[in-house]
Every structure is written in C-alpha cells, then in structure tokens.
C-alpha cells in the first residue's frame, strides 16, 4: 500500500517534470547528448519494521553507472545499473522457530534504476532542475550455517529495497568552473528482507517490511567542470526525521559527449 502510494508520487513527479519541461518551451536539441555517469554513494538511514515497533539502521554503499540521454534540450532521462553493499545490522526476525538477529554486515546486491530531469534557466546565474530518480536494490541471496544448537541448520536471506527521490535542484552558475547547488527532495525508502530458516524438522520464513524514516532530504553540493567533457559532482545530504537525522553523501563523474 505504502509502496503503491510512493510509486504513484514518483510517477506524478516524473510526469510533472516532463510536462513543465514542455510547458517552459524545451526544444529539440541540435543533437542528442549522451552522458555516462559514474557514481558512488553512501547513506545511513533509520528504518522501522514490525509495524514501527522496532528500528535499526540501513547503511548502504552504492556504485552505479548511468547513461543519461538528452533528447530534448534541457530534458534528460537516465538508466542506472550498479552494485550495492547494504548493511541491515540490527534487523531481528522473530516469526521463525528460532529468532534471528541479522548482524551480517554489508551484503551485496544489484542496483537498477532510472530517472528524469528537466532544466530551467531562471537567469544567467541561476538555474533550476527538476529531478526524479528511482532505484531498486536487488540483494543477492546469502546463506548462513546455524551452529551451536543440537541440530545444525541453515538460513538464507535476501534484502530488497527501493528508493524514490524527486524534487528541485537550485544551481548557482556565477562561477567559471564551480556550480554550487542546493537540492530538496521527496525521499522515500522502503523494502523487504526475506529470511528462511531450516533446522532439522523446524522451518520458517519471514518477510520483513522495512520503511525508511523521514520523507524529505536536503542536500548541498557542487559541480566542478574543468572542461566541457567532464564534470565532478559531490554532495552531502541530510534526512530530518522524528528524533534525529540521517545522512548520506555521493560523488559523481559526469562525462559529456
């Protein structure tokens, strides 16, 4: 239900981005620009589970490659593929015969995603982008042996999470090489962790729904463009939430052709 609403919001924001772009008179580019983007990101986010009864942290490292295509001047879309390391430490599964406290550290997974962006030139020194980005982390299945009991057993687990970010980015373009910016985004994260337990005749499984706390993120960053062919973009962001603050950071290398 929650996920469905979030997907609708993301679609709506993407649609708004596209419509606004058209309304503000974007025009066909002289040529289609293609921009490969390499990105690394880290975030630390509080997640709630068991109907908000418990909390733990999701730490993630994301390494992605995106291909950004600009078919219309100022309007671009991207497809993202990547590798992730997600740390669900502290997630406890109590719906199986033997309860499990996942403290397995960073677990690998594949990232898939995509996004839309529309640029508006406000003045010679200020620009605004509307961005919408969706990413899903498809965790690989991990197996563990259960020792220390009279009967040995196995566990297998797999975490999947989704994130939607959408909102405006305000750029200052008054410097020659540096373009600082501020981003404010709707930022929703949710997912599930599937765990299965087999200990002799005992078996159980639990699909644990997780939800990231906070719905909005605020970022500051800068884009450094020493040449027209390459740009380095870095940002740090925070996600205010009830009784705390989550955070993240990302760096990007943008190649332009």
């Amino acid at each position, binding site marked *: 239900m929650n996920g469905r609403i979030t997907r609708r919001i993301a679609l709506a924001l993407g649609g708004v981005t596209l419509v606004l772009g058209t309304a503000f008179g974007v025009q066909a580019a002289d040529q289609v620009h293609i921009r490969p983007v390499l990105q690394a990101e880290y975030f630390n986010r509080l997640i709630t589970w068991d109907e908000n009864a418990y909390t733990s942290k999701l730490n993630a490292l994301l390494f992605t490659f995106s291909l950004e295509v600009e078919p219309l001047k100022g309007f671009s879309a991207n497809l993202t593929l990547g590798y992730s390391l997600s740390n669900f430490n502290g997630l406890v599964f109590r719906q199986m015969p033997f*309860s499990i406290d996942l403290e397995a550290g960073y677990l690998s997974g594949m990232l898939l995603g995509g996004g839309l962006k529309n640029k508006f030139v406000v003045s010679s020194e200020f620009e605004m982008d509307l961005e919408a980005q969706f990413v899903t982390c498809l965790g690989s299945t991990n197996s563990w042996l259960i020792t220390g009991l009279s009967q040995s057993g196995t566990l297998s687990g797999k975490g999947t999470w989704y994130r939607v970010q959408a909102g405006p980015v305000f750029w200052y373009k008054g410097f020659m090489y540096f373009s600082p910016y501020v981003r404010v985004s709707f930022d929703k994260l949710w997912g599930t962790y599937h765990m299965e337990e087999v200990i002799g005749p005992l078996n159980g499984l639990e699909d644990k729904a997780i939800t990231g706390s906070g719905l909005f993120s605020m970022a500051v960053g800068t884009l450094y463009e020493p040449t027209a062919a390459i740009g380095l973009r870095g940002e740090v962001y925070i996600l205010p939430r009830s009784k705390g603050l989550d955070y993240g950071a990302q760096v990007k290398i943008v190649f332009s052709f």
Partner: protein
Amino acid sequence: MKKENMLLMVAIAIAAFFSADVTGSQPFSPAGIGPARASAPSTASYVPGQVMVKFRDSISPVFQKIILRAYGSKIIRTLSGQGRYQMGVPAGYSVEETVSALNQNPLVEYAEPNYLVRASVTPNDPLFNKQYALYNAGGTLLLPGSPIGKQGADIKATAGWEESKGSAQYLIAILDTGIDLLHPDLKGKCFSNGKDFVNDDQDASDDNGHGTVVAGIAGAETNNSEGIAGVAWNCGLLPVKVLDKDGVGEMDKVYDGIVWAADMVSNGVKVINISWGLDASSNLLRDAVEYAYQKGVVIVAAAGNTGGQVQFPAAYDNFVLAVSATDYLDTRFTLSNTGSEIDVAAPGVDIITTVPRGYYGPGSVDYGFWTGTSIAAPHVAGLAALIVSIKPFLTVDDIMNIIRFSADDVNSANYPGKDEFLGYGRINIEKAIVPLIIETVIGTTPTAIR
C-alpha cells in the same frame, strides 16, 4: 621524545608489523604464530569487523596510530583513557585473526573483539540467590550442605528473560495435588481456583504439597520482593487436582483432568506439567495426552526417580516431552530414570521452591528445597510457556523441537549427542528464545553464532 627513542619505536613498530602481518599476501594463520594472549571465544558474540585495542602506556599516541595504520586498520574511535582504540578489521581478515595478530605485537597490551553484551534481568525475589537452576554463578551455593556449584550450570533464565518474561495470556496447567491458592508467591498467579477431580469440586487447593512445589518453579510470582522467581515470570497457573492428599491419583480422574485442561486451551492453557508417572502404559492415559497434543497443548512430564525406565506419560514419545534431572554441576541426578524417550534435562537437585503455608509446621517458612525429576519438569514447562508467549503461532512439535535443539549437551564428553540419560541436554532458555546472531566472517564460511 628523543630522536633515538623515536627511531627505536619505529623499528619496533615495523618489526611488529612484519612479524604479524595481517595485510600481507601470505595466508595468515592465527594458530601458527605462537600463543595469543586473547582470542575470540566462539560462544561470545561481538560486533563484526571491529576490534578493541589497548597499547602499552609507554607508547605515544602518534606511534599508536602509526602502528594501527601499519596493520591496514581504520581507527573508528579513540576511547577515553590512554591508548584505547576501536578499530576496523583489515579487509580480507576476520576479527579472530586480527585479534590474534595484534596480541603478538609487544607494543599492544591487549586486543579483543568488540563484544556485544546483553543486559540480564535479575528479579528482586529475596530467595533468588538460592535458585542456582535459574542462574548459577558458581562457587559456594546457598543450598543445604553448601556445595560448590559450577558456573553456568543453569538454564540461563536471566538472559532469556531479557527477551521475554512470558505473557499473562498463557497458562500452565499444573496437573498435580492442587496448589496452595493463598500462598504469597502463587495467589496472584492462579487463573482461577482450578478444578479438583479428586473431590469433584471447583477448589483445587493443595492438601499434599507436591503441586505447590511444582507450581512455584514453573510460575511463582516474580519480582514481587517475595520468595522465589518462577521460570515463566508473567504466565499464569491453572491448578488441576488429580492426585489426592497422599499424592495418588486414579486414572479416570487423571484422564478427566488432562482432557479438561486441554479443553481450557481457549482460555490460554498451552502447557501442561505432569510431575508424576506410572511404570505401566495406560491406554487411557495415552489417549488423554494425545488429546491434549491434538488440541495444541505442550505436555511436559517427569521421567521418574526410580533409576529405571522412563515412566508414563513421559514415555509417550510423540506427544510428551520427557524430562530428566541434573544438579548444580550439570551432572545427572543419579535416580533420574533413563531411556531413549528422554528429551531434555533440567536442574532437579536441591531446588528451592514454594511449599504450602505451614508445610513444615506452624510458623515455618513457605519455601523448601526439593529434589527429583518432578522438580526438573516445571523448569521445562516454564520454558515452553515463555516460547508460547512470544510465538503463539508455533505448533506443539515446533515448541518441543525448539526446547530439544536449544539444550546444552552437558554430558557430551561421555555421551555426545542425544542420549538416554539427559536426552539433548540441559535446557537453555537463552538459546531457545533470544535471537541467534548471524555474523559473516570475511573469507570464511558464513556462520551463525550466538
């Protein structure tokens, strides 16, 4: 610091680095580099990927950091007090390997995993310090004869209570001689006055004492500044009197009592404790326990104290958990019956528990020390009630298997695995209900350990 001293320190650091290289390309074997001062016990749990280090006081902070960097470790945090660090484990190495390597370094005073500690719940019941069965600290025990106990020869109740103290929604039916309904440590725990099948009335008061003894172990009121602690701290008790004042019961009454208790499942009866038995099989008794099993009630029964074969109903293997008795050293109570039907064991020697008021004479204390498998069984019944309280969705077989598989094989030196003396071993509440910790050790087979 003088220049010569600095050079010496650098030399030592480099020597230490090469003598215990955790970042090098050669395969690293902690067992092959001499005795370590400390190692990670396999039974303890700790934060994955982290190690705590303390340098000798003579080492300056600058060199401490140089040394840590030489190991390829990232300093996560500097702790208060000189020379103490929380550090990350070098990529590709386990916590154990890193601890072992650091402990080879003469500049390091000690290194150890960043252990996870769990709060234990200690109730305020004044006689709790005599309940070695629940928590055995070892040393001289406050029992008759002041025996020396073995640390850890207990059912890990205090650690288990951290996860659950039970739910008042669930009841343990005590099929016995009744319960002293006005006992200060039991009156608040009885769901009702129960049912007396001996005298055919609704007052299951205890006119023998045995039922009160059993009830206190399973579910005495706990943390009430009175007497003892019960295993199922918050669970209720249902007295069902099927044995008379002499501790003898007729099978028709026993049958009626078990069936009645099983029919109380909708009122929360999920566990039946049977601390009695007979040497011969009885079809009526078998039918009764099978009925209760089919109704979703876990039946826990004492194996018997004759030193012979397991008594019935404990011997009805498919439907009943058969319990033998151990002592404060985790050794078997010598009169505990034996057989392949034994599932688990629990402490049953010199166990302090409730007795009916005035049991030892006018003005006597309401507590006494008892021995036998009758006393062991309610420890297991209490554990079953704790499991039901947090996982009511489990089947009877699931609960029985959790109790079996989480038991400590305390006689494994002579009888590894399930045996006819202690079954799977002495029960362990912590293992049964506290979440198992799953950790990944880099470069090794991922393993779940507690």
